């Protein structure tokens, strides 16, 4: 009886050790993953900061003004001025599209035989 107890205890210790070993490795893996995610986040954040800075740099008023002047013939942009304000009723309705897309392959559709809902 006593030897059985010894064997059982020994096996329980082995099992606990095995479990602890596994948990340890799982924790290590999770930590490594968390760290790599964290470094991804910080990389993404750094990239975002650079992109934001670049966006701000490319959209700086001086550069936009120069671009507008260079591309005046194509874009025809002018500074915003008071006489450009309008009223809603000054806007014309859009013209009706002249002719609808031509139907080239008509398909006959019939509801005959369809079941009532």
């Amino acid at each position, binding site marked *: 009886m006593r030897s059985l107890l010894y064997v059982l205890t020994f096996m329980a210790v082995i099992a606990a050790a095995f479990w602890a070993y596994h948990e340890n490795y799982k924790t290590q893996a999770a930590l490594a993953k968390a760290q790599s995610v964290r470094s991804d986040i910080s990389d993404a954040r750094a990239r975002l900061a*650079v992109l934001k*800075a670049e966006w701000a740099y490319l959209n700086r008023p001086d550069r936009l003004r120069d671009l507008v002047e260079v591309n005046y013939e194509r874009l025809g942009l002018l500074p*915003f001025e008071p006489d*450009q304000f309008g009223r809603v009723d000054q806007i014309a309705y859009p013209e009706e599209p002249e002719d609808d897309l031509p139907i080239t392959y008509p398909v006959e559709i019939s509801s005959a035989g369809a079941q009532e809902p």
Partner: protein
Amino acid sequence: MIRTPLRPLARILDARRKGENPDAIERENLRIRQEQMRDTARSRAEGRLLVMAIMFFCAFTVVGLRMGSLAASEPAEPRAQVSGASIIASRADIVDRKGRILATNMETFSLYAHPQQMVDPQRSATELVKIFPELDEDRLRKDFTGKRKFLWVRKKLSPEQKQLVHDIGEPGLLFGPREMRLYPNGALASHVLGGASFGREGVHSAEVIGTAGIEKFFDAELRDPAREGAPLELSLDLTVQAVAERVLLGGMKLLNAKGASSVLMDVQTGEVISIASLPDFDPNDRPRPLTQGEAADSPLFNRAVQGVYELGSTFKVFAAAQALELGLVSPETVIDTSGPMRVAGFNIGEFNNKNYGPLSVSDIIVKSSNRGTGRLALSIGPERQQEFLKRLGFFETIPLEIVEAGGGKPLLPKKWTELSSVTISYGHGLSSSPLHLAAGYAAFANGGHKVVPTLLKQSGPQLGPRLMSEQTATQSLDMLRKVVTEGTASFGEVAGYSVGGKTGTADKPKPRGGGYYDDKVINTFASVFPTNDPKYVLIVTLDEPVETSGSEPRRTAGWTAVPVAAEMIRRIAPLLGLRPEVETRHLDGMINTSN
């Protein structure tokens, strides 16, 4: 275990036969046994002590090794922490009122050298100078071959420069990561932003500290990790600021002015929408302060905040408003402005020695009569005038959120005599900054309340205590409007926006005392728009402008500052979302038809 018997039969019998005492044998054996037991116990105890000693030795060795490794290794962040919102160590961004970036950080690299690790110091010095022409080759060579173990070569590198240095292939040239402050808009709002530089520097990082402007004022807040990178929101509007600076630069060039400044402020909240001072500088490459000459000649000088000038006739409306507030006069009260007028032995004259004769209070402002406001000031008296100007904020520096604001302390007369009272009523003898003037004019525009100019975005009106009744404010505003429609600021009319304002032309005082220059003036136009529903105050100041289109040079504000301000309003008001009140063309001739 076989125990030796204490009384072995063989020996006992033998002893009895010899007639000896057999008890001696027992005692002898007992003694031997006890000695054996003692030896065993001793050796066991020794063994245990040894085991204990080894255990303690191992334990302390482990502790010692761990301590040593902790002390010698690089600090690492704990891996098993639950980090929600992570701490962002970099300096917070500065953005304008619409979230557009005014200042941000960029990761870059610094270059340092370990001369003892260098393979070919001579060649690396030559190659470095090829990449960075501003470095001194001889000095580098001396440093690289001398006794120094460490030296900084450059604090900031662009990625291209880093690659070029990398390509030299010198193991003694090393890179350290750096956070660099970047102002993507260049010189825009440079006087507000100020600039930043490095504080304490290490190989792996360096502190970024603000050196001027709002960067220095909010240095601790911007560096606080608890902000979690939340940007600092300013009241400035990037677009409006750009347009204001552009128009101001154009005006300054056209009118041959030495400098110029403008302040645009929301009259309800005190938010400064745009504040410009020319000439300006690039905060990415902040110039050094002047070591000689006048501080005002440096581009670092913020004319709108630090520049205290006598702002001339723009002050007249304060005298008129106070006289109205005290009930001494009404806008229609007629006052004789004809000369001569002598106060404390000094003759008070008019511009170009004119004589306007009897004028109503409203016309005194419209025609800008010195003697008229002087008489108003005399009836108010120096004490009450002082008290009113003090409440308007002309005695203290404006607590604007930039470090330079402390330099804009108004210059007051040492003794406030009747003469000072008269001269101050038309803007001479009291020097203040354009920002003070903006804060003063805002009181007329918001119905008589004090507002404090601020550079931070506000959530709603920040009206302070009442300075004058609403009626006085409205009457003053009407006078200001009249100055534009029929007075000295006729160029200030902007189609669609009713502008009210007052011109001011002040002679510049000579720097070392001794009176005023004849041909150097400060021209100011202080305006409020739109006067039917006042929202903004705009102050434009030009330093030494001259208008040369006529037969003789003109130096009055009506010819210089006013057209600049009008153009600024024309360009800025639509950007601020103010709809012009223009009579739209009636399309009577058009009839809807259908075909």
